[in-house]
């Protein structure tokens, strides 16, 4: 049976090709997105997070962990595994010979390799060159690098090179090279002995302690820390909560949702082609059934045929997906690089990924084909012998079960909405999309009926209008594809443009100073603060410039607040610096001037909206900033600069917490009429110890960053439209094939090829218009949800949704053009065949 069926399918090579292409493309996009996002995320995690594989917790402290604490922990009889880690800020590496190799940022980790061997032995797997000579490692400044970095820098075992650190230049020797192809987290890491790393850092404090703890052990440790007086000086944090990524779960969720939509459209292609193919082979199946093949046998044979084909298509899709992923990866990486040390772009494909994608591709195809197969199997052998009747299928009422499903979905979404999480929101989005999908047929019918009335004296036009109501699985398939692609395109554009507008105007307001001064980002590793001498020189410069109206020093440190790492800012906050803050909640009904006075006086703190959201804080809540330092929240201000959260405190409070931390930057206001651009070119302004940035350039850079961030979604939208085009074309082609005999009929009636093509185009246009109308509504609704709800839940900031009529119009027009193009292709190819 299988052989007969497959041979019959092979007689329709175009169909077979479309079937394979549809599946392959759907799988390809899913594969591309999954592979590239997983790989980029992997790389990003590796770049920004600690070398903490296996660690469940970390002990952290503001000023580092004293060695004494670590020793106490190791000597304590309690049950816990603790590994000390020293981490140095990203360093630039330059080869010692000519210094002509490109500078490279690395993250240097100092580890106690004996402990690592015991508790985290995997760290040593994959060493391809060099030796683990403990005496050398401990006694000499020796370093391990990844293969990628060593190759890039032209280094081999035994080479010495210069490492630039905050404490100066140090000569180190390469003693080991890791194969980082299977361990991407090592790609831009350098490993040293912990003692050597401490020597480079000129510190005795450890950066943190990695720990492997069960919940019970963590509780025991907390008690131990309290008992031995460490609790107020260190923080025990659970690791999975504290690996913030600027491109977080929401971003990857969005990407994967888009990819799955593409797969859905690929499945629609499969559905339409399979349905057509089955109809065309109906006589064969009739013969087989009459010969004694059972219905179950027929279905299983068909599904087996599809399994083989889908496996082939999926493999092709995965291969294509890998190629696409290679293209997408740089975009993703560029997005992430906007925020951090550039992670390594390397594709990470495991056997598990392969299996999962195969299941997705084949499973999706089988699901898509199941309904037509079941329909076919339900027919008796005699029914199969009848020619397929061309009926004008009257629109069924939306069946009760579908309605129930939608109502239940809405209810569930409504209930979940109480929790205000992403899943709830995406359920609402799914429910809305489903409703609109179910409304496609009724809308088309309404339009058709209305137009029929208007065109009742024009039978050709009536054909165009009413033909969309036949073979609804094809026409609805096409409309569904268009609905999904257009509405998601409108939604995503709406969200990004709303966000961009909000962010841009916020930044414009916030960049109220003319010049921003920060420590020089030079190749000695860069200090994050302005040291005393630099500050003196800078202040002297500013004070001696008559153009300078005011300046304000800024301090910044990280603070752990309720288990969350928050950026704490402090300044003198002159009048000029405070005008740009928008409050969305405040403790008392006073004017902002009073609020700022209270802040300066140390009577409270101000927190950013994302922080308030994540920690469920409101104005008036008390915050414990440190031992014996508790302050109320004076106000919550609007902020798009950091979704982790920021806090403003007065100078006195900051000094109590952090004593002698130097400032990290200076903001300078100029008198009206002074040209900042030309001012900074004057002597005395430029200095190798600091760098100057103009507000305008910062704004420009932020726009660039923004575009970089959303490059990936733009690329995906294009791919998406491509699949949509293919899906539409396939549906229309299937329709054409289905109506091939009709085509002969039209020829017999005297309709020219041009006229027949016009009918197809007209039908496509009507379908596109119907779908387009719904897409506009759905798209903007989704844009509203994504902008005002999803952004809030995911990041904590409020963004007002901005409607843009042009966006809707362009989307509608592009949908109709795409449909026309698909129809033209279908008519041409269908006509030729």
């Amino acid at each position, binding site marked *: 049976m299988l052989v007969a069926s497959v041979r019959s399918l092979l007689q329709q090579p175009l169909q077979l090709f479309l079937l394979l292409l549809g599946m392959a493309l759907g799988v390809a996009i899913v594969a591309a997105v999954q592979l590239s996002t997983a790989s980029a995320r992997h790389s990003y995690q590796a770049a920004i997070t600690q070398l903490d594989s296996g660690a469940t917790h970390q002990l952290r402290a503001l000023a580092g962990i004293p060695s004494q604490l670590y020793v106490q922990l190791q000597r304590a*009889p309690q*049950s816990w595994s603790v590994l000390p880690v020293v981490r140095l800020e990203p360093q630039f590496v330059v080869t010692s010979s000519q210094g002509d190799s490109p500078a490279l940022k690395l993250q240097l980790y100092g580890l106690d390799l*004996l402990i690592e061997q015991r508790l985290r032995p995997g760290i*040593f797997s994959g060493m391809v060159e060099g030796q*683990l000579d403990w005496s050398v490692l*401990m*006694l000499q400044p020796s370093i391990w690098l990844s293969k990628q970095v060593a190759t890039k820098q032209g280094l081999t075992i035994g080479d010495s090179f210069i490492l630039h650190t905050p404490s100066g230049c140090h000569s180190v020797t390469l003693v080991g090279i890791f194969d980082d192809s299977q361990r991407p987290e090592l790609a831009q890491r350098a490993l040293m002995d912990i*003692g050597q790393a401490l020597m480079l850092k000129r510190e005795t404090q450890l950066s943190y302690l990695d720990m492997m703890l069960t919940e019970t052990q963590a509780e025991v440790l907390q008690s131990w820390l309290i008992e031995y007086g460490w609790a107020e000086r260190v923080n025990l944090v659970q690791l999975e909560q504290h690996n913030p990524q600027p491109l977080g779960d929401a971003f990857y969720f969005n990407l994967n949702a888009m990819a799955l939509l593409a797969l859905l459209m690929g499945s629609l292609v499969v559905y339409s082609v399979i349905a057509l193919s089955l109809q065309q082979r109906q006589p064969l199946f009739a013969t087989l059934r009459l010969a004694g093949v059972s219905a179950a046998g027929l279905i299983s044979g068909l599904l087996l045929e599809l399994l083989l084909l889908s496996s082939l298509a999926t493999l092709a899709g995965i291969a294509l997906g890998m190629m696409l992923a290679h293209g997408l990866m740089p975009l993703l990486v560029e997005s992430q690089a906007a925020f951090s040390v550039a992670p390594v772009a390397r594709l990470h494909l495991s056997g598990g990924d392969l299996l999962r994608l195969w299941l997705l591709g084949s499973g999706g195809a089988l699901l898509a084909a199941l309904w037509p197969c079941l329909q076919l199997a339900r027919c008796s052998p005699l029914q199969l012998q009848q020619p397929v009747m061309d009926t004008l299928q009257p629109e069924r009422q939306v069946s009760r079960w579908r309605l129930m499903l939608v109502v239940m979905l809405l209810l569930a979404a409504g209930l979940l909405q109480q929790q205000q999480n992403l899943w709830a929101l995406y359920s609402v989005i799914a429910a809305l999309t489903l409703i609109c999908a179910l409304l496609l047929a009724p809308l088309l019918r309404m339009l058709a009926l209305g137009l029929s009335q208007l065109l009742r004296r024009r039978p050709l036009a009536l054909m165009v209008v009413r033909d969309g109501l036949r073979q609804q699985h094809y026409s609805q398939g096409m409309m569904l594809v268009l609905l999904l692609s257009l509405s998601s395109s409108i939604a995503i554009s709406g969200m990004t443009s709303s966000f961009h507008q909000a962010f841009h105007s916020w930044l414009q307001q916030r960049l109220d100073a003319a010049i921003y001064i920060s420590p020089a980002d030079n190749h000695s590793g860069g200090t994050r603060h302005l040291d005393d001498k630099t500050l003196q020189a800078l202040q002297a410069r500013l004070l001696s410039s008559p153009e300078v109206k005011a300046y304000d020093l800024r301090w910044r440190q990280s603070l752990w607040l309720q288990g969350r790492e928050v950026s704490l800012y402090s300044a003198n906050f002159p009048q000029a610096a405070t005008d740009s803050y928008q409050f969305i909640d405040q403790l008392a009904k006073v004017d902002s001037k009073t609020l700022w006075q209270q802040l300066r006086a140390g009577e409270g703190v101000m927190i950013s909206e994302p922080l308030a959201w994540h920690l469920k804080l409101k104005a008036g809540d008390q915050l414990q900033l440190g031992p014996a330092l508790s302050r109320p929240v004076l106000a919550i201000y609007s902020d798009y600069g950091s979704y982790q959260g920021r806090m403003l405190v007065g100078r006195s409070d900051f000094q109590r917490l952090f004593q002698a931390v130097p400032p990290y930057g200076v903001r300078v206001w100029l008198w009206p009429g002074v040209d900042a651009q030309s001012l900074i070119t004057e002597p005395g302004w430029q200095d190798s110890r600091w760098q100057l940035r103009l507000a305008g350039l910062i704004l420009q850079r932020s726009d660039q960053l923004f575009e970089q961030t959303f490059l990936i979604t733009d690329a995906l939208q294009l791919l998406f439209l491509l699949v949509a085009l293919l899906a539409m074309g396939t549906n229309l082609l299937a329709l054409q094939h289905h109506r091939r005999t009709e085509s002969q009929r039209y020829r017999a009636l005297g309709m020219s090829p041009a006229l027949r093509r016009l009918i197809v185009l007209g039908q496509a246009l009507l379908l596109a218009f119907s779908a387009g109308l719904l897409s506009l509504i759905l798209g903007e609704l989704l844009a509203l949800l994504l902008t005002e709800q999803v952004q809030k839940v995911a990041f904590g900031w409020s963004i007002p949704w901005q409607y843009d009529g042009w966006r809707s119009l362009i989307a509608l027009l592009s949908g109709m053009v795409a449909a026309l193009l698909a129809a033209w292709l279908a008519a041409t190819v269908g006509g030729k065949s």
Partner: protein
Amino acid sequence: MKPALKKAQWLGLLVVMLLLLALIFMAEPTAHTSQSSQSLHRLVNSTGSDTQPGWQQASVDYQLQFPRDHLAHNRFAVEWWYLTANLKAQQTGDHFGVQFTIFRRALNAVQVGSVAPDQNPWLQPQLYMGHLALTDTANAQHYSVQRFSRQGPGLAGSAAQPLSIWLEDWRLQANQPDQLFPAQLRAQAFRGQRPQSFGYQLQLTPLKPLLLQGEQGYSAKSEEGGNASHYYSATRLAVTGQVLRQGGWVDVQGLAWYDHEWTSTTLSKNQTGWDWFALQLEDGRDLTVIRVRGQPDYWQLTMSDQQGRPLPVKGLPRLQVLGHWQSKDGVRYPAHWRLQLTAPELDLEIRPRLANQEMRHTVRYWEGAVTVSGSHRGQGYAELTGYDAAR
């Protein structure tokens, strides 16, 4: 071929193809975990016959003083603190053998002392290795574990106040200042309540004064010299306490033997290892027998009376090997001896309580509780090194 078979063939081919693809991608790179072990092995065992300039050497003129010499001698290459004990469960009478050893290995002779302790304690060039072992004779089980640590800012080492030797949470600590014993010994193989964990919390009380081995604590180890050590023992310590075995603590009591030795070269060029016996006779005498195997063998015997006073031992002993035990991978250890001395007159049969008491770690040796019978009864511990090289 029948169509059905052909179909099955193609299906099978497809499945195999997919599986192969999956397997290819699932393949993990081979681990290089043995590299680190090899490095440690080399490091720990490298004081065979190479004598590096810069190390301090044992000297016959050196006067051992206490509590000073209870502490580490960082200028020497190698050092160990050794405690072995034969214990009995108070309730059941089950026998336990206990071994607690902390080894120190200096990494670089030139660097020793070059980094001042207050500069960067993490770079103190001392590597510590700990071995714990428990022989559960009643259940015919021998457990052992190894742990490494750098000296660091107090991760391992020795200290005067309080007088103690430790490696992380394994600790031997004196109860009083200036005297090592009485002392408390606490060590557990794995932290927490893991079923395979074992350990002990013991109180050690000296029954005799310290015994200086060899010539006033100078142990020559060869005729030509060059691999001498400083060596002293506490040959008889009363033990009370608890032993952790199979998740449960057992009250025990018995006798322990403590050794502390330091050197910069353990074996000379033509020496392959040693057989060492620490025997506590029921009549209150304690006997140390060391045979350093070489061409020729080197013998060192020390005996103390019931009060701990050294007793003279004349003539060379006769040590007959009456039986062997072989490990699964073919390392053959002697496992039954007859030891004969003329002055004092002793004809002892020494048998291990359990055949397999091998320590298979970075350093491989046999160390186990033994019984003594024959002309005199008693108990003790035996240590056999260098037999894995002969395989």
